């Protein structure tokens, strides 16, 4: 049987921005459209995101869903090595972490995948 889906990085389905408070990072995930949002609801779960950030050892991951703006907000506690004043990371705020999440692979139906490539928003 031939494949009906393909793995694509999250950035083809959503955009994102990370913010920090203390040792907690919040990372928004904003679907490019409704079809993308539906796939993300299934696949971008608290467990899958926690696993993707495994090397940062989150103490807790919470997903808040905002269906009216087809977005989610992930709150990842304890992932900033202490946060802006404490971490030795160059990026103590974890500002770049949205781009780590945007590399996460998502299973996408082939037909949708075709439409998503090279889109300019």
């Amino acid at each position: 049987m031939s494949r009906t889906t393909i793995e694509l990085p999250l950035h083809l389905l959503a955009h994102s921005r990370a913010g920090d408070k203390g040792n907690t990072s919040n990372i928004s995930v904003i679907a490019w459209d409704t079809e993308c949002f539906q796939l993300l609801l299934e696949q971008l779960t608290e467990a899958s995101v926690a696993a993707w950030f495994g090397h940062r050892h989150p103490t807790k991951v919470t997903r808040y869903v905002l269906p009216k703006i087809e977005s989610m907000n992930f709150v990842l506690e304890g992932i900033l090595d202490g946060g802006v004043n404490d971490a030795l990371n160059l990026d103590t705020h974890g500002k770049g972490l949205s781009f780590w999440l945007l590399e996460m692979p998502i299973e996408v139906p082939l037909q949708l995948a075709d439409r998503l490539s090279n889109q300019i928003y």
Partner: protein
Amino acid sequence: MTAKNLFVGCATGFSGDRTDGTAPVVDTLIALGGGVLTFETLAERTLALAQIEKRKNPLHGYEPLLDDLVSPVLRRCLDHSIKIVSNFGAANPQAAAQRIYALARAQGLRRPRIAVVHGDDLTQPEQLQSLLKRLGSNIDPARIVSANAYLGAQQISEALQDGADIVVTGRVSDPSLTLGPALAHFGWSMDDWHKLGCGTMAGHMLECGTQVSGGYFCVPGQKPVEGMDRIGFPIAEIDSQGNFSVFKAANTGGRVDLRTAKEQLLYEVHNPASYLTPDVTADITNATITETAANRVRIDGVTGHERPAELKVNVCYDNGWLCEAEISYAGFKAKERAMLAGDTICKRIGHLIDLRIDIIGALSIFGDDAGELAAKGFNAPANDVRLRVAGVHMQKETAEKVSREVLSLYCCGPAGGGGVRSSIKPRLDTLSCTIPRDFVDAGWTIAQGQRT
């Protein structure tokens, strides 16, 4: 009678932001018939740094770029009744007010009425004792650099209602810079949670400056932004019921649309049903965003609930020294040479100092302090990398070993290393807690200006 709509512009998103975005905001406010100009300049650690400056010189400790922000627009703001509201007072709002009087005098302007909000600073010895008890911390009070409560919008509102042209604050919650003027303008009650929630989220959309209008957004070829070199700062139009729209200063670059607005709406939000400020618990669970014109969005569906019982406090304290040093390796086996250099330094001083090693160009900011991701190996093709070594220690001389070791790689390290740079700076750490409201004596006064 319904008050006419209020326009609030925000011309900086942090201390160190561009200062030339102010003029287009003021031009736009004038064209709209007036409004309020705000500057947000206090990130978490900014106030501690300002406190250190104030210790060195009692006339310092406010926003270092104050002159650049205020001077070019002060005349037009006073002429057109545009109020200025900002937390650029940082650790020394009185000194900031004196500086603005001086700027006005130097330009031959009328003497502005400047209000100064006080009460956020909690560094009196008895206040610190209570805070440390509350924090359950046994750190030496002598190590504490700053302790500030987040005040709300009430004092700003009262000062504006009393006729202040300019309101200078230290630590207030960022959205209060917008909510305060809205409270003063519309006369909303301090327990009208719905309107307070709306005014707070209008402030939230503005508080990071261009982050809602095309800044911090662009990915070339995917989500482009025109005119990155002259992005317009944002302005909110708020009506008497709390409904609001966001747009940007006229004749500027940038973009305001569904996508930029969604990114900023969720920025630094945790539970969307419970965005806590000193003024209200704002709720964006059912928020919607609509593009109503080019570069203009309306946000609906925001509401609010009763404010938190207590105020948030940040305490910043000295916590040793951070030393960072870098050296570059380029060409064949660059990554391997940089990794060997890092390993060498760990062998020599890793037992003395907590170290972090980055190979910039191969793996740095995605990695963790413990090096767990790096240990899994990284295969990025990297033939032009920079080794970064960061270390912390309570003793400055020990922390400085990091730069000594990186420097000595010139002769003793792997082949071809070059371009060493290093720095050492005091490290500040933060503790947070909440305190009862009556612990804080918040208020405002009109700053007394010295006539010369």
